[in-house]
Each structure stands twice: as C-alpha cells, then as structure tokens.
C-alpha cells in the first residue's frame, strides 16, 4: 500500500540525511566561534563546515523535503503523480548534483560559503552540482504542475485543494527565482570556473544572486505555510478559519517576493538609492501576507480550542495538543516567527540595516526564521508523515515530544545571543569570536551562550534523527493512518480570482522586470573592468 509514496519517501530520506550532517557541523561552528579549543580545530575546517552547513541546510535539506512534500500532496490531494518516471529522473539529477557539490566542499576545493560570491572561485563541479540540484527541482515542479493540469481537466469547476494551490504558487515562484540564479551560474560562474572566460563582474553576479536569494526564503516558507493552513488546524481539532485569505496569501507571496533583492544590497555600490527604496516598498509589502497568515492560522487554532470547550479569552490555548510533536513544532515555530518577522522588518529599513548588515545579528535572524520556523515545521511534519507514508508507528514517542521544545530552547539561546552580539558589532562568519588579539570583548560571553545553545540544538537534532531512523527501520507495522486535512469553516464556491495562476504569473513577471530591468541595464551599460579569480582557502 505504501509503494505509491516511495518517491516522496526517498526525497524526504535524502533531506534528513543532509540535515543530519549539517547539524553536526552547526554544533562544531558554535564551539569554534566561542573559542573552545577542541582537537582538529582550525580555520580550514571551520570555513569548510560553514560552507557545508549552509549548502546542506539551506539548499539540500529544504529542496528535497519540499519536493517530497509536493509528491505527498499530489498523491493525496489529487490522487495522482503524472509523469512519475520524470519524478525519478529529477530525483537522481538533483541527488547526483548535491553529492558532486558536497564532495568538492568536503575536499576543501569550494570553501566559498553558500552565497558563493565571485571573484572567490570554487571548483567547477560545485557550480555544476548546484545547477543539477536546481534542474532536478525544475523537473519536480513540472511533474507537480502536470499532475495538477491532469486533475484540473477532470474537475473544471472545483477550486484546487489548498495544498496544491500553495504548491503551484511555490513552484511558479521557484521558476521565477531560479531564473536569476541560472543567469548567474550558467551564464557567468560555470564558464569562468572552467577558464572559458577570464574575468567576472562581482556586482552583477551578486545582483543576479539576490534576485534568487530572497524568494528562496519564500520557497522554504510557503510549503511550511501549506502545512499550517491545511494540516495544523486538523491536528488541533479545529477548522480552517478562512480559505480565501489563505489562497490570497500564497498568490501575494508569488507576486511580491522576488522584486525585493536589493534589500540584501543596501550597502552595495552601483545600485542607486531610488531603486533601493523601490525594493524596500515591495519588501514591506511582502510582510502583509505573513501578517494575514498569522491571524488566519491562530484563529483556526482558537476554533479548535473552543470546539474542545474553552470559553474564556485565552483558555483555548491550553486546550491545544501541546504534546503532539507536530503541533508543538509548528506552534513553537510560529512563536519564533514573531521575532523573525519583526527582525526582518528591521533589516528591511536601510537606516537600521546599516547597524546590522553582515553582523552576527543576521545569523541570529535566519536561525529563527529558516532555522526554527521552517526547520521545526518540517521536522514536525516528518513525525506526522512517517506513519502515514511507511505504515509504521512512531518509535520513541516521548523523545519526539521533547525534541521540538529542546530545539526551541537551544535556538532561543543561540539566536538571542547572536542578535545582541550583532548589535554590539560582531561580524558574521568569523572563525574566532575574539577576532585577533582580544577584540571580541564586547561579545565574548554571548558567543559562549550561543555555543551552549548550539549543543542543545545538536542534542535535539540527534533526538529527531533517532526517532526517524528507528521508526523507518523498526517502527511497529500498523495500517497507515489516513491523511486528513483541515476543512474550512466556509467552503469556497468555485475557482476564483486567486486561482488564476496564469494571470498572477504574468503580474509577477512584470514586477520582476520593473524591479530589475533598469538597474541591471544601467550597470551592464557602464564601462566595467571585471575581476580575475581568487582562491584564498
């Protein structure tokens, strides 16, 4: 019975393997920065592990998990995966690409971090591997879209299941975002790393990178939101508070989350202040669908609490299933996102950005957003998925129940410390918090607290991996529980404005052109010199 989920399971397995390797490296980095002297500690190991941690967590773990989740929804919400063979081809292309990139990183040939800014040059197979990972994900997107079209042909008058609506928006966003990455990597980095071109323009490459780099965040977040809207209310015993607003949120993310990249380049030369201001407007606009999501999801949970008999102002919170590892993971992830979202609003204001740009604050920031909100949601979802996909009971249930709280505690120590250290001026990505001599005084204690947080996070990651491995290999066989999804309070009547994917894709393309065409042409038309390659690692 579970064979039809093998494709999804294989993706999720790769995602968790990448997560396991990356977690160990994370713990190592926390200790290194805090100047804890362990055997083998060294600059090379540190910067290799920063590169591997970033690439494996941000690109491999997330992408494979999202691909697996897409297949689960295609199978369960549409009853089909159209072009399963292509799905397997995409998997192998992405897997081979990830392994190629990972090998060149671990051999110390590509210590360029996950942002791989030229003119620092990695091994050609690093860029080629990353490209294959993205190509694999493009094929995955095609399979999900084909499944949707096949379903749509049979159901012309029904709105798409919310899970698929969210996935379609995620996939279109991914195609638009990775276009920028493809121009950078295929058009510039690969020929340059192979020696076909001698020089490269670092600013132009950066600009293409951030065309991709910010929507990447929403590529992670939107599948998490699908789980919040479409699964969480059901787990909590409630109803989805508003179906149309959930649909609206996904479309707004699709439309708004790409033309924002300059907020990562506020202190770069060559892009005029006016265009930076334009990207500021879209950056704040993309805050809006998250604010709407916060209301809808929390209202759905309140409905759950009230259905269980709560009648006071806040007692519904206590009636929620806090001992269910999926529920607690997501709920804690949502609490973290309050800080993540507000921190993001600070980063997006360029006057305040100057205080925090490239400081430890930024590490603190993306560890509450990606590292908590998204990662906890995906880990929690794994507890929900495994019994349904494998037909096995979760092993070590108590460990699974404790794990999300452990993660939250560790991340609170880690992230709060680095936020504060960043405000005190600690630069990001440093081997030693002391820098040289004793310059790290203002933040030395904070790096030690963060290291304790890192160790707690590693223990939490180990717990997660133990539960997953034990369940996968030795969980008690049970009839696979059914996939049950949240039902909205008011059922949508039929496909509406938010279901017109062609229209919204066109709007998104126009916005990207408006946001990028003129500043890019201005840069490209200016006489530029280019830069030769450097390998300072």
């Amino acid at each position, binding site marked *: 019975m579970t064979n039809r989920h093998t494709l999804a399971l294989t993706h999720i397995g790769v995602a968790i393997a990448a997560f396991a390797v990356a977690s160990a490296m994370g713990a190592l980095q926390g200790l290194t920065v805090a100047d804890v002297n362990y055997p083998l500690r060294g*600059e*090379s190991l540190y*910067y290799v592990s920063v590169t591997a941690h970033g690439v494996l967590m941000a690109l491999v773990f997330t992408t494979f998990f999202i691909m697996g989740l897409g297949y689960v929804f295609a199978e369960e919400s549409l009853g089909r995966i159209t072009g399963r063979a292509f799905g397997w081809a995409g998997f192998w292309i992405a897997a081979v690409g990830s392994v190629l990139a990972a090998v060149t990183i671990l051999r110390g040939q590509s*210590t360029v971090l996950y942002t791989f*800014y030229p*003119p620092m040059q990695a091994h050609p197979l690093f860029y080629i591997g990353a490209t294959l990972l993205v190509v694999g994900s493009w094929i995955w997107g095609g399979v999900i879209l084909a499944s949707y079209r096949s379903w749509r042909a049979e159901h012309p008058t029904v709105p798409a299941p919310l899970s698929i609506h969210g996935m379609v928006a995620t996939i279109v966003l991914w195609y638009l975002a990775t276009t920028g990455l493809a121009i950078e990597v295929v058009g510039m980095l690969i020929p340059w790393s192979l020696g076909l071109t001698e020089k490269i*323009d*670092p*600013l132009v490459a*950066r600009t293409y990178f951030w065309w991709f780099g910010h929507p990447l965040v929403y590529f992670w977040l939107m599948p998490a939101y699908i789980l919040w809207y479409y699964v969480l209310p059901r787990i909590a015993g409630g109803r989805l*508070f*508003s179906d*149309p*607003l959930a649909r609206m949120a996904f479309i707004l993310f699709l439309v708004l989350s790409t033309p924002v990249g300059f907020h990562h*380049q506020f*202190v*770069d*030369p*060559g*892009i*005029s*202040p006016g265009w*930076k*201001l334009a990207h*500021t407007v879209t950056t*704040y*606009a993309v*805050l*809006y669908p998250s*604010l*709407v999501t916060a*209301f*809808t999801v929390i*209202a759905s949970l309140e409905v759950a609490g009230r259905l269980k008999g709560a009648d006071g102002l806040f007692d519904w919170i206590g009636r929620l299933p806090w001992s269910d590892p999926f529920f607690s993971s997501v709920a804690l992830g949502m609490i973290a996102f309050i800080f993540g979202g507000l921190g993001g*609003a600070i980063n997006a*204001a*360029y*006057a305040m950005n*100057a*205080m925090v*740009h*490239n*400081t430890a604050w930024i590490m603190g920031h993306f560890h509450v957003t990606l590292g908590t909100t998204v990662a906890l949601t995906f880990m929690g979802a794994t507890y929900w998925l495994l019994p349904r996909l494998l037909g096995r009971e979760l092993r070590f249930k108590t460990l699974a129940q404790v794990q999300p709280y452990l993660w939250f505690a560790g991340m609170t120590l880690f992230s709060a410390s680095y936020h504060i250290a960043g405000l*005190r*001026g600690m*630069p990001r*990505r*440093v*081997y030693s918090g002391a820098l*040289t001599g004793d*310059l790290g005084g*203002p933040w030395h204690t904070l790096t030690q607290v963060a290291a304790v947080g890192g160790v707690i996070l590693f223990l939490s990651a180990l717990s997660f991996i133990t539960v997953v491995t034990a369940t996968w290999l030795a969980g008690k066989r049970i009839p696979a529980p059914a996939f049950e999804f949240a039902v909205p309070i008011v059922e949508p009547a039929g496909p509406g*404005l938010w279901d017109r994917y062609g229209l919204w894709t066109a709007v998104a393309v126009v916005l990207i052109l408006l946001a990028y065409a003129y500043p890019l042409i201005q840069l490209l038309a*200016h006489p*530029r*010199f280019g*830069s030769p390659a*450097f390998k*300072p*690692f």
Partner: protein
Amino acid sequence: MHVALYERIWMWAAAVLVVIFLGTIFVTAGLQAIEPPGHLETIDPTAIHEHPEFGSPTVTTLPDGSVVVPVVSGMFAFSPDPIEVPANTRVTFRLTSEDVIHGFQIVGTNANAMAIPGYVTQFNMTFARPGEYTIVCNEYCGLMHHSMVGKLIVK
C-alpha cells in the same frame, strides 16, 4: 470573498502597519536625506597600485573642510591603517577592493558597507565622539577573514 469581521479589521490594521513602516522610511528619506550608498563608479581592480587615488591611499582635507578617506581592502588588511579623522567633520569614505569582496564596518557606529572589486563604494559619516574604533571585515574573504581588522582614530 467571504471575510469575517475580526479578520477584516486585522487586515486593515496590518495594512496600516505596513504603511507606517514605509512612511517612516519615506519621511526620513525625503526630509533628512537619509539614503543608502549607491553611486556607480568603476575602477580596474588589477591596476589599483598605479591608481592616483587608491595607489597609496591617504586621508585628504578638501577646501570646504570636509575629509575624504580612500580605503583599499585586500586580503587581510585595510589600507590606510590606522585611519585618522577629525571629530564633528563630514568624512567621505571611498572604498574599493584589490581582490575579493570585503566588508568595512566601524564597530559601534553605523558605518557599514561592502567593498566590491571593480567598484568604488562611497558614503558619508560624521563622528561626534573622539576615540579609537575597531574596523572589521564582515564579509567572508578567505581563511584569515576573522583577522582582517583595522583601526580608526577620531581626534
């Protein structure tokens, strides 16, 4: 589209919040001319040492009393080092890089910008408090990135 009353109130409140955030930025941009760096000026990163301004970068005082500080960042130091500037004077930093991308951050101030090979990054600062400040590189630039520090002396 059916939207419950409380949710409609929240949606308006959220929209107002976004407008307030943006309004603050626009007001400070319009009235106080607070804006990020962003002028477009290119330079040949392979010929920095022959460059009239960046070849041997030195702090210069302009006729109007303001000060210009050209800074070359390279693995793993800033030049000039230390940088000496007067307090309560407009200081224009002009940054570039002779190799990879570096960051230039003066700890305890909001001076924070990228040095990108092939380009000149320009921004203005006024230092009110005399003293010694640490300059750090905040963009990974190689295995000794963490040791890339400099000193600013405000007199």
